[in-house]
């Protein structure tokens, strides 16, 4: 058990360092950082002096080490485009993205799981088929198209919901939330639905297929033979065993939601990290790009670590035979 934890931690650190190396290479070798920092009129002598001062002549690993230390403190330098510290930009935009993502994740679970259970239990029912068709359409329509259509319907035609932005937000220390204001809450509805839809259908299909598998197993048949009520079988035994892989997948999907937020934020002009990243790509704003990279990597690594540990704690099979580790999901 202990060895497993250590191994996972070590792996996490290796991943972070690798990502850090990519981010750092971006920073230093894509275009000349000096060119990006000074004006056209700066003399050659000044440039050389600046190189020395910034330590750009030091060996690779010294520079990389410095980058890692800075990154650990949250210092990613100055945005080329906005002339402000990148860490400021990120801390401003982070709550917007996280709030949206968490709500979307909850939505996806809250709708996806019941739908999945229902379609597994009543395989041939009419409603089941309707759900399945909806799920199929859900994974066939790209996220941005859903967003556009929702804006068209609810924002322009029906005028029920705001068409862009976060509405009014309330500052709570370093976090900002839109949930406490009416306009903020309304602004959250369409983006979170758009973001949740893909995952919702994924979860639904996953729950359905897992549950179908489980319902076929011997011990369920045995429980039925024993005469247990359907409800006890379905929810007591089948669902519980379905949930383990489902929860781990969902945990992994949280990271995916945060990444998909890029698209949703672009369509809805949601002032989060995803929109920041797209703007940075269009403007070739390297510090922002590498900072986003590191942040996202951190999220994924942490989420995966937690999920792995949870999975390990919950599934006894893993503890017995350690060679099975690495084939979950």
């Amino acid at each position, binding site marked *: 058990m202990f060895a497993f934890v250590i191994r996972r931690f070590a792996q996490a650190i290796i991943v972070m360092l690798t990502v850090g190396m990519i981010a750092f290479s971006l920073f230093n070798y894509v275009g000349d950082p000096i060119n990006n*920092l000074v004006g*056209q009129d700066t003399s050659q002598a000044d440039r050389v002096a600046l190189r020395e001062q910034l330590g750009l002549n030091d060996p690779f690993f010294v520079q990389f080490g410095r980058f890692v230390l800075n990154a650990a403190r949250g210092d990613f330098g100055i945005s080329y*485009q906005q*002339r*402000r510290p990148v860490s400021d930009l990120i801390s401003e935009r982070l709550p917007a993205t996280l709030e949206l993502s968490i709500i979307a994740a909850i939505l996806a679970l809250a709708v996806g799981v019941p739908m999945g259970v229902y379609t597994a239990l009543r395989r041939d029912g009419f409603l089941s088929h309707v759900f399945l068709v909806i799920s199929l359409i859900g994974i066939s329509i790209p996220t941005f198209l859903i967003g556009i259509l929702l804006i068209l319907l609810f924002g322009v035609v029906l*005028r029920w919901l705001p068409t862009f932005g976060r509405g009014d937000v309330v500052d709570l220390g370093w976090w900002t939330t839109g949930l406490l204001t009416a306009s903020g809450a309304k602004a959250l509805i369409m983006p979170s639905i758009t973001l949740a839809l893909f995952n919702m259908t994924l979860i639904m299909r996953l729950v359905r297929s897992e549950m179908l598998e489980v319902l076929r197993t011997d011990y369920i048949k045995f429980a039925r033979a024993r005469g247990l009520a359907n409800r006890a079988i379905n929810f007591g035994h089948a669902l519980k065993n379905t949930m383990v892989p489902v929860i781990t997948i969902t945990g992994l999907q949280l990271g995916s939601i945060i990444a998909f937020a890029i698209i949703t934020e672009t369509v809805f002009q949601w002032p989060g990290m995803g929109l920041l990243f797209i703007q940075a790509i269009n403007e070739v704003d390297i510090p922002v790009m590498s900072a986003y990279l590191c942040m996202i990597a951190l999220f994924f690594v942490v989420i995966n670590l937690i999920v792995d540990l949870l999975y390990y704690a919950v599934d006894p099979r893993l503890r017995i035979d350690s060679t099975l580790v690495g084939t979950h999901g």
Partner: protein
Amino acid sequence: MRFRNGILAAFAATVLAFSQGADAKTFKWAFQGDVATMDPHGLFETMTLGFQAAIYEGLVIKNSDMVTVGSLATSWESINPTTWRFHLREGVKFHDGADFTAEDVAFSVDRIRSEGSDLKVIAGMIKEVKIIDDHTVDLITPAPDPILPIQLEIFYIMDKDWAIEHKTTTATNLKGGEEGNYANLHANGTGPFMLKERQPGIKTVLVRNPNWWGSMVGNVTEAVFTPVGQNATRVAALIAGDVDMAYPIPVQDWDRLRSAPGAKPLTGPEARTIFLGFDQVRDELLYSNIKGKNPFKDVRVRRAFAHAIDIEAIKKKVMRDASAPAGLMVAPQINGFSEALNERWAYDIDLAKKLLAEAGYGDGFEVTMDCPNDRYVNDERICQAVVGMLAKVGVKVNLLAQTKSKYFGKVLAQNDYDTSFFLLGWTPSSFDSYNPLSALMACRRDGLGAFNLGGYCNEEFMDLLPKIQSETDQVKRQAMIDRAFQIHKDEVGHIPLHQQPLSWGVRDNVSVSQRPDNVFDLRYAIKN
């Protein structure tokens, strides 16, 4: 700056709202891009300067009829041909409470000379500043300049002490790069509004300055500005009432706005001319497949391009009949415009092909075109249409359309005019022809031709220029201006396309003043 404690802010806002009662008017508006900076000397861009006019003020200002009137200066006179004496307004205070004096004017002139400043062209008009007393200052020009005062509307005055205290005695350099200085995100002006909150790319909030010296028509007490890049989102926001005003509105949405309840389009001709230009200076084009020579140095090639453009098609399909085709580099509202010279080159593909063949390019050639995609109305689509038209005469154009910061960062002087073929727009801030003649079409020397991206140069034209600047007889001056424009037109120095339309959208309960230079002045915004 933001209110850190949200609860306290909410409480304060409620108290404020109650104390102001029914007079509190929050005005929300959106533009396609963001205000570039809060530093009044950081960027010479109409939209940014127009926004800053709510916070900062200059010696003079234009009223809603585009007439120059006094702002921080109450009167001025020319005491000799190279000296203008300005009498400054008394009792004016900056937002932080400091007094406005002649020292601040002198300091601001120095500041626009500093390295990061984008207003150096204004600095070039002023050779020296003499402080006569606390409320009198002399501006000495390098040469006789009878029109100096009308060009100073966009030269904003900053407080010397505030700048020294916050270490912002040099302007924010937006095109180069270290971390922006204090004035990039903070403001301290004399204007009717104070900066309350600045989140670049997200939102900027202004509130009324209770100690402002002047009076205004508008009744806005709080103004919230948001940049909304997507056209569709911006229009949808206006229709939904999320903003009170939005601009620019895509021309194809005018009908939709007219039929939407609660909103309407505000349109009219803008004094901005959109034109095409060519690199006529380099011996070999930077971005073309022709090696060893420059096709644009041959007037037949330039004329061929002019005849290849079907401006009526562009007007009808790209601009939805909302543009005014132009043959001159200035709009009808500009002093110096002449109807006779506004004739365009005829749309004649065969003539264009013949001219190209005569010049030795019968098989056509390739060239890259630089174009912004978020600065002018339908700029990228106009460029795409031009590309299509040039394809019909054998010229293959590779279109490089970019966001305006990247575009201007590439083609302007600071980057050595790195372009071969480009689209640009221009509104003379002084509403006088000398401005485009000297900035757009003059040879690039002696501080002139700063925005002459293609380097068009004609000596007879240059001889006329100083005479136009100092001539006081209007008839003689007009004749010289006509002659200058004629020379430029005969040589096809640029190809004017059209005046673009002003295209704003407003809610029905709002009234604003729409200036022909597309500047939105908060002082005239009335919300009911």
